[in-house]
Each structure stands twice: as C-alpha cells, then as structure tokens.
C-alpha cells in the first residue's frame, strides 16, 4: 500500500515536471523542473532499495549536472531568447513518434505480460547492503568499464575546456 502511494506520487511528479520541462518558454524554469523530475526519479530509486543510486542521482545529476546547466543558461543571454519563438512547427511529428512508441511498448507488454508479471520480485534483502554490493560489483566485475568511464570523463573534461575556452 505505502509502496504504491510512494510510487504514484513520484511517478506523477516526474511526468508532470517532465512535461513542464519541454513546455516552459523560460529555460531557467525548464531547468528547475528538470531538477524536480530528476529528484522524483531519485525518490523512485529509493523506493526500489537502490540507496546508493539515489544519492548518486541527487549529488551528480541534480547537484552537479543541473548546476552546470543553470550556469550555462545564465551565461547565454536570456532576455533575447525570451522574445524568440521557442517552438518549431513539428508538433505532429512529435506526436506521431510518441504514439508509435507508446503503441510499441503497449504491444510488447501485452505480448510478454504473462511471463513478465509472473516473475516474483526478489526478496527485499537481496540488495542489502546496497552500497557494499554496488561497490563490489563496480570494482570487481566491472572494473574495466569503470576505468573506461573515468577515461571518458577525462576526455569530456578536456573537450569541454577546449570548447568553452575563449579564442585568443
């Protein structure tokens, strides 16, 4: 019961703020609603016993990446942007793509419904202790991807600096 309330609360919050993200004219407000959506997702993670991912989502996504976004939005001139047309005329395309997507997922779910729903969820303790399990998996099984990810970050950092640097 409590599970469901929590899930629907966060799900509704996530969907509502996502819609606001793509519909607000003002980019700063969009960014704020994106933060809300990300935090709602973090809440869903928490309800799924993924504590570590919850905090990663909060620190990295909401606290790190989004601050970067807000920073950049403030750097680029918004007063001008506010008076520009914010949407192109592709509503139909978007709707069609979404509809097709929805239909696909619905079909897939309908087909696999029996098997998918029959799967019993793992016991609640399966992921305990969460942080240690994630760490073990990250540093033993997925050591190589982890290192590759760090190199990716390094490359991204260098790339961002090169891109954003003032041309002298």
């Amino acid at each position, binding site marked *: 019961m409590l599970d469901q309330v929590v899930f629907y609360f966060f799900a509704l919050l996530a969907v509502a703020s996502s819609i606001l993200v793509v519909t607000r004219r003002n980019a700063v407000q969009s960014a704020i609603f994106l933060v809300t959506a990300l935090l709602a997702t973090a809440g869903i993670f928490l309800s799924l016993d993924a504590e*570590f991912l919850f905090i990663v989502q*909060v*620190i990295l996504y909401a606290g*790190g990446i989004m601050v970067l976004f807000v920073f950049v939005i*403030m750097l680029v001139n918004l007063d001008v942007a506010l008076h520009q047309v914010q949407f192109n005329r592709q509503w139909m395309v978007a709707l069609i793509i979404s509809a097709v997507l929805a239909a696909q997922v619905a079909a897939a779910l309908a087909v696999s419904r029996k098997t998918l729903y029959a799967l019993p969820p793992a016991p609640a303790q399966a992921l305990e202790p969460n*942080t240690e399990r994630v760490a073990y998996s990250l540093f033993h099984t997925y050591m190589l991807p982890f290192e590759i990810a760090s190199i990716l970050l390094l490359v991204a950092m260098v790339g961002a600096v090169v891109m954003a640097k003032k041309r002298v």
Partner: protein
Amino acid sequence: MNAIMPYVFPVLFALVIVALLPLVAGYIVLVERKVMADMQVRLGPMRVGPHGLLQPIADAVKLLIKEDIIPENADRLLFWGAPLISVTAAMLALAALPIGPFFQIADLNIGLLFILGISSLGIFGIVLGGWASNSHYSLLGALRSAAQLVSYETSAGMAVVGALLLAGTLSTRGIVQQQSDSGVWFIFAAPVGFFIYLVASIAETNRAPFDMPEAESELVAGYMTEYSGFRWALYFLAEYTNMIVVASIATTLFLGGWLRPFANTPAFNFFDYLPPLLMLWVAGYCFRRTPKQPVAVQKMFIAAVGVLCIAVAGILIMPMAAPSGSFLASSKPGIHGAFWFLFKVGAYIYVFMWLRFTFPRYRFDQLMRLGWQFLVPLSIVNVMGIGIGLALHRELNWPAAPSLLLGVAITLGVAAYLLSAAEKHEHPRVGEEEETPVDA
C-alpha cells in the same frame, strides 16, 4: 498500530527540530554579534532583554512584518521559490545527523552521503534567487556562489572520503561507533583532512573570509541584494542551518560525535561532571547579573534563564545520580551525548566566527585558486596518505599509530611543497623582500 510506531519518534523529533531551528539560528546570530562585539571592544546588543537576550525575537518580528517587495522585472515564480529551496535543502540535511546515540531522525545506510548530497541542492536557491532578482549585483553574486560551492564541494567531499576510509561505513552512527571502538577521534588520525574540511566548509557556507557571494563591500549583498523581509529571513535561516549542518558533519566525522573526551578511559570519568558544572556556572553568572538589570522584567527574565540552566544541569546530573540499571541511568549516554555533540558543534561554529572577525576577505580569483590548486590536490593526496597508512596497518600488520602517522607525514610533505610553490610564484623576483620603507 505497530506499523505506525517506528515513525512516531522520528516524526516528533523532526517536528521539534523544524520548530526550534529558527530560534536556534536566531540565537546563533545573537551569539555571533556578542562574540563580534567582544572581539571589537564593544558590548553588542544590550537593549532588548537583559544583555540583548530577546534581540533574536525582536529581529524575527521585524522581519515578518516588513513589506514584501518583489522587483518589477523579477521572475516572480523563481523569486518566490528560491529561498524555499535553500531552506528546505538545509533542513532536510539535518535528518541524518545523530545528536547523541538516541536522538536521530533516521540512521540511513548512506547517511553521510545523504547529508552532503541534499545540502548541495541548496545552491539552486542561491543561483535562482540571484538570477530571478534581475539585477547585476545579484547575478554576479549568484554566479560567484555557484562556482564557489561547486569548487569547494570537491575538496570537502574528498576530505570526507579520507575519514570514511578510516570509518569503513557511511552511516553517521556507525562512524561515531567506529571512533568509540578505536578510541581515537579521526581528527588525530587524519588532521590534514580535518583542516581541509574546515576551510572548505567555511567556503561552502559562504562565510568570511570566503564570503564572496555576499561580499558586502563589493556586491552589496550578492544574491540577496533584492530580497527583504521574510524571504530574506529564509535565506538567513538557510545559511545558519547550513553552518549547523557542516559543523555537525565535522563533529561526527572528525571530533568523535557525541563521545566525551577520553570516553574509553575510566580515569577521565570525572569529565562527566563537566556538563552540569558548566551549566551551573552559567546559572550562577545569570544570578549574579540579576540585581544589576535596570528593569524588573529584565531581572525576572535573566533569573528565568538562570533557573533554566539549573534545570538543564539537573537533567544532566540525574542519570549519574540514579541507581545503575534504572531507566534514568540508562538514559545517560543519550543526554550526555547530546550535550557533548551540541558542545562540539558550538565550538566549531565559534571557530567560524573567530575567523570571520580576524581575516580580510579573499578575492574571487584567489579563492578559486586556493580551492583548485591547493585544497583539491591536497585532499586527494590526503586520501592517498590515509589509504597508504591503512594498507600498511591492515595488510602488513604494522601497528596503527606509526602507519597512520606515515600517511599524515606524506600529506604534510605535499602540503609544504604546494605552499612553497605558491610562495615562489608570489615572489618571482629575487631580492624583492618587502621592508617597511624608510627615507633615503
């Protein structure tokens, strides 16, 4: 019924904290003003209540009834919401703090990360408030603070990681337990980490000498320039709550949380008598000042404060006087733990104030340089040093003290190198030694 029971105490405790926090923040402001006055050969607030004891309440009332001004071209939604974000983030972070072994809202598995993560969301309040005000001063202040918080979070986080290596857990309670078991506060095992955290936490709470975002002599009040009244008070509340949060983190991580000094040594058990004695001393001071108050109301008020102190002393003494095994005696760690925790938090905040009134302010580029070129490398080396020490101790079975000391020594060596490199940069030319100029 049983399903609800586990939630009752945390919810009650959360309500108490949320209700008391504005009051506590107000009194921290009063203490700050008094400390400032003491250091500046003044008296500080003396008018409202005896020794200005009612000043915070008068200030709060003033702020609440002030006209609510929203600038003409401000983004109303964000201008309205930004202070709320700041306050909410700061207050949420309090949830995982253990004020003594019994008083804690939630002992999360990821406790410490939770505090760090949630309090880092407060930055949105600052940035959005500055941006929504639609003023140059505010925007500059907001951009500065965004850059500053992100920079110093890095080194603060790395300093925390150093202590976490020692603790082996993220749970705040577990960290203190670990310090209790090993008998050593982590400040002694990782002094450099504590230093880094001290500096970074001052910068993160925007306090002098790192109070760039609100540097009053340059940007008037930074991101808060356009705010007034209640919204401004919310920002202030958030700032002081953040101070409490970082002080609590430092206390939990480095200063042994709720443990009293030498908690494991029975020879120092007389330390248990210090808290009640301290409270009695404060009570005595209040009574001594009572006849000197000019107005009857003030006499009564300061006497009431004295009685309150005696009551607290009584609460602190009771578990010690009660027969062992009784409920009262078993509550001793909780009550005394809460005292020591708050005492340490207070001491940490006092250091904040002390630094604020002593030092001039950094310039923004100097601040960033200090953060990125000194603190971040040092904090990484600090983690490595602690790691080396722990590896020597755990893998090679060296005794704990020398191996940890070796780690500290490595870190200090790097710190000395960084400082000397900075020195060289500062005085590139030989013989440019500055002397008091004399006439020729």
